[in-house]
């Protein structure tokens, strides 16, 4: 059985234990232990009913832990005292877990870690590796997060927006170590779309699929960044693009626009262009206008300026930059790009070098330094 299939069962099994009256933190620990055992046992002895097996083993792990625990009596009382869940729960277990793990009382780092463990079924070690922190640090972060949400009622609807933010953060972390966080974020978002009919959940899934489709084209040898305009579009994953576009169209048809749908629409327009020159920049500007209207996010305004520069010329792009805070991340890089398009290579080179100094990542810094170098070389000739 594939690991992903096993992990997909995680939230439902936690839900079963919670319904039997086990508190969330204890249930989550028991299911982790059962997952570890499944990874060990299943390859040689696959169960006929994987979920039933996981429930049974998790329950046994819980009982073992409860027996070993010094506060055993208190727990047993608790199990009996917990009222049986009433009929007609407002949300299903898996959905309830998404809400709980993204609870607004959690910091984003804690919400991300808890989601990956309780909803994603990843081990603490895998999560720690993915975020480049020691396993003990991640274990501590997760147990503190569980204490924070200990008082939250389990089967209660939460705010979809906080869940989407957590999934977005996981996706953007990209790829480091054994776990492909982008793929995991897509899996969790896809699973969420099956549980809740919400146009922004679909919008986020579309956004992820459309960006994931470009992954192979985004970096070259040695981790070198390849900007969108220079990507080899034959490397784009057409299957993911088709799915992303389909998911987006279904979401847009419901006529309740949100920021993820708007961002996905921009990504879809890029995906639609077979060459950079065929890009429909006028429509992209329109979508940025929507995005700015929806979020009033300065980063959206910054990206809009790039699109305006392509649609209406570099001068218009520079005009669209006016009034934006120069301290915004990537402001200098955008300004450099627009000055180059406007023919002012000296200013562009200076701004690229400035952007390189404040770049938030090494690949971006190398890329921006190369851009400055390219222009300085042209100026010397």
């Amino acid at each position, binding site marked *: 059985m594939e690991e992903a299939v096993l992990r997909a069962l995680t939230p439902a099994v936690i839900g079963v234990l919670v319904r039997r009256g086990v508190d969330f933190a204890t249930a989550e620990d028991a299911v982790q232990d059962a997952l570890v055992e499944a990874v060990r046992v299943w390859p040689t002895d696959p169960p006929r009913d994987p979920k039933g097996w996981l429930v049974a083993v998790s329950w046994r792990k819980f009982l073992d832990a409860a027996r070993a625990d010094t506060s055993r009596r208190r727990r047993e009382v608790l199990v009996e005292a917990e009222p049986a869940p009433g009929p007609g729960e407002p949300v299903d277990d898996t959905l309830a877990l998404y809400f709980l793990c993204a609870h607004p009382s959690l910091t984003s780092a804690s919400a991300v870690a808890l989601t990956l463990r309780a909803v994603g079924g990843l081990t603490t070690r895998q999560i720690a590796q993915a975020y480049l922190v020691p396993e003990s640090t991640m274990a501590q972060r997760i147990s503190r997060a569980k204490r924070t949400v200990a008082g939250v009622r389990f089967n209660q609807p939460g705010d979809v927006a906080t869940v989407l933010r957590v999934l977005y953060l996981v996706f953007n972390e990209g790829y480091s170590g054994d776990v492909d966080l982008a793929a995991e974020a897509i899996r969790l978002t896809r699973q969420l779309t099956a549980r809740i009919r919400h146009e922004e959940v679909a919008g986020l899934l579309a956004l992820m699929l459309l960006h994931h489709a470009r992954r192979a084209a985004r970096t070259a*040898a*040695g*981790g*070198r960044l390849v900007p969108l305009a220079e990507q080899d579009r034959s490397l784009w994953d057409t299957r993911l693009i088709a799915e992303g576009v389909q998911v987006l169209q279904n979401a847009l048809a419901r006529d309740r626009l949100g920021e993820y749908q708007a961002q996905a629409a921009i990504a879809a327009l890029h995906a639609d262009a077979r060459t950079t020159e065929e890009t429909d920049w006028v429509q992209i500007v329109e979508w940025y206008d929507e995005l700015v209207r929806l979020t009033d996010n300065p980063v959206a305004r910054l990206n809009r300026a790039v699109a305006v520069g392509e649609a209406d010329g570099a001068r218009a792009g520079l005009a669209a930059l006016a009034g934006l805070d120069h301290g915004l991340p990537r402001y200098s890089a955008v300004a450099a790009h627009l000055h180059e398009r406007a023919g002012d290579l000296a200013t562009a*080179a200076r701004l*690229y*070098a400035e952007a*390189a*100094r*404040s770049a*938030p990542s*090494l690949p971006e*810094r*190398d890329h921006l*330094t*190369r*851009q*400055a*170098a*390219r222009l*300085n*070389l042209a100026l010397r000739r």
Partner: protein
Amino acid sequence: MAKYLLLKHYRGGPTPLTDVPMDKWTPEEISAHVQYMHDFAARLEDTGEFVDAQAVSPEGTFVRYDGEGRPPVTDGPFAETKDLIAGWMVIDVESYERALELAGELSAAPGVGGKPLHEWLEVRPFLTAPPTIAE
């Protein structure tokens, strides 16, 4: 095995042999340099000597405690500090000689014209836990 820190500085240390800022190189020279650094780290992973490599932003702030109930005092950034760390690599190697050898190789990363940069790197041994058998 012993751990060593190979420190790369933006500024500070002995006078550099060449001092052409990177944005005055050609894009190909930059790519070759970046590739060399990647390959170097990958090779040390293969030999089991790599521990960690990080780069840090040139902009930093000095911070200190300012007394009970008061926010910490900050100072800087200082544009003209004499010494400025750019990044580091931590290696775990058999001997000090091996640490010097690797630092030498790292310093040979190509620069302008594909020629070795001869960049000064600082090698600092880690202080370790005390040994179990001390006499």
